[in-house]
């Protein structure tokens, strides 16, 4: 049966005020998400990951390309608010404080999506209580205002509001990057548990590789509006094949002085502005493997393994990098040793 969400050749350009130039945010992106699966969109600023998330939820109208949900294309006649789709796709935002109406009590905010599904008041209150408990929020929180909650609690309410309509897909736009490390870990555990219980698919947008690695089934690496590499999570983290994926993975700082970030692939310079994109591969200016072809033609996605695509002419040379770039396995081993001792107070 067809995938839950299918995005074909999605393009989005924003007009730049006062001039004819445009910001090329998304330049032809394709991916699918199956039921209960988590696809992570990984990229840095200007990669277009947030724009894609907002196109999928109908907050922004795409310039070109089609987005189909549950087999049927979304568009003018069938958008996120129409009867058939209402409540089936939800959104969780990055800034916890800004995603809650300051003048509305928590209980009211949690139950609001049910109002638009015509759920009766009694049912609403029951489901709000149930979700609040599932999120680990005390019942008294329901009478409080957002300003009285911690960032972690606010984010839980944001997630609760999304989960309460039992949606098939939740788009999460960097839900953890505004939180402290301990709160971030709690939210990630919560998301995994909710997915296991409700079977909700996630489109998880983030620039934080360690969180992505932990909770996603498949990963798509985005650079300046194009997917440069897409694969199953373990495959990508074990053997990244695009120079940008390698560079991204190499610059992750792990909390262990002995695991230095590797300098196998260092991406020099800055991310160019998405206003006037270079013709060829957009990484050409920063890539150590750059060749003549890279500057002129855009490398097409080529299959290099089971559902593993990479858009780079030199991906064999990247594959040939013998030094493993990824110390994560060793870090996980060290961290398990360290955490398994002392919790019981001896």
């Amino acid at each position: 049966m067809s995938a839950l969400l299918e995005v074909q050749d999605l393009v989005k350009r924003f007009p730049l005020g006062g001039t004819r130039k445009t910001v090329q945010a998304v330049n032809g992106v394709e991916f699918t998400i199956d039921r209960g699966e988590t696809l992570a969109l990984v990229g840095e600023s200007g990669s277009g990951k947030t724009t894609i998330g907002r196109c999928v939820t109908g907050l922004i109208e795409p310039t070109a390309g089609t987005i189909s949900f549950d087999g049927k294309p979304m568009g003018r006649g069938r958008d996120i608010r129409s009867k058939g789709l209402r409540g089936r796709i939800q959104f969780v935002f990055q800034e916890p404080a800004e995603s809650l109406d300051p003048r509305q009590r928590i209980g009211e905010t949690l139950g609001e999506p049910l109002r638009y599904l015509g759920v009766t008041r009694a049912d609403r209150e029951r489901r709000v209580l149930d979700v609040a408990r599932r999120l680990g929020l005390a019942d008294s929180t329901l009478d409080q205002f957002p300003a009285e909650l911690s960032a972690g609690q606010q984010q839980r309410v944001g997630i609760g509001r999304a989960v309460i309509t039992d949606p098939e897909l939740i788009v999460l736009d960097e839900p953890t990057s505004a939180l402290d490390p301990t709160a971030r870990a709690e939210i990630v555990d919560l998301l995994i548990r909710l997915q296991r219980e409700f079977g909700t698919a996630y489109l998880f947008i983030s620039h934080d590789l360690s969180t992505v690695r932990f909770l996603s089934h498949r990963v798509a690496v985005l650079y300046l509006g194009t997917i440069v590499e897409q694969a199953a999570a373990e495959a990508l983290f074990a053997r990244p094949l695009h120079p940008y994926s390698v560079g991204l993975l190499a610059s992750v700082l792990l909390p262990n002085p002995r695991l230095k970030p590797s300098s196998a692939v260092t991406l020099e310079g800055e991310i160019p502005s998405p206003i006037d994109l270079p013709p060829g591969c957009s990484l050409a200016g920063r890539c150590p493997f750059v060749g003549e072809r890279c500057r002129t033609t855009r490398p097409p996605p080529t299959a290099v393994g089971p559902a593993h695509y990479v858009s780079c002419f030199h991906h064999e040379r990247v594959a040939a990098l013998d030094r493993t770039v990824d110390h994560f396995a060793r870090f996980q081993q060290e961290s398990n040793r360290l955490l398994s001792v002392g919790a019981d107070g001896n």
Partner: protein
Amino acid sequence: MTVGTRFGSDAAAPATRVDAPWRRRLRFFFAVLRARPSFAVGYAIVGSVILVAVLAPWIAPFDPLKADPSVYLLPPGGRHLLGTDGAGMDILSRILYAPRVDLTIAVLGTLVSALAGGAIGAIVGYYEGQRAWRRALSATVMRSADVLQAFPVFVFAIALVAVFGQSVRSIVIAIAFVNVPIYLRLMRSQVLSIRQLRYVEAAYVAGASDLAILWRHIIPNAIAPLVAQLSINIGWSVLLTAGLSFVGAGVVAPTPEWGSMIAMGFQNVVTGQWWPSVFPGIALGLTVFGFALVGASIEVLADPARRRILSGSMA
């Protein structure tokens, strides 16, 4: 194993309502008045002006309309505390009756313009920049607001009064008409910024209709600055009404109204009798000052950031 089920629903005691939120807000409001005496002065002035307007018949020493030529232009003091004007009417009584006219005109005028301006501003602000015809609608409305505001306000008001005839009703219409662009612009800019906030987008994604979004999320968060402007605007409208009467285009004599009283006393000032013009001016100035203070306090209390600074400094 879900964290949620670790404790049952009955275990949690229902949250006792220690302090109803409105009682907490009221206590905070009075604490603010103690901390900022100027706000207290503002509410005191506005309160007493309204009180005076209501109780005028009982507290005014003379009938405001009785002209007794035998006692014209008496200086202040004696039976006529603030003296009498050129027509022999008691100035104090007329000052006490005046807010009935001045305030009704100003309050009605600004309320009408706030409601009209606010509503149009909200619709224009919400639909601006979206589908084609909505963008055209908001552009025309904004350009006509520019046209309205390019008019010289005072002459425009006089012209309106001339068109609708010299009555209280037409002054109210003039004031409403002149103030509409202020609220329209204020509400539009509020709505434009609020509609992009995340919680509005969350409601959109959850399937809320435009009306539900406007009514439940945008307007409640956009109201506060409007109320602050309302208070300042009432004061300004009282000034405008007095100005209209001064040039003879406002409230017709002998109805007691501060502006026309000042106008009637105008010739006497040059020849030394200052009181028929000066006292009504003081009453008018004080009232407008009161409303300005009230407006300033609402501006501070309505803005969460400034409220936190205020409560910090009150500790």
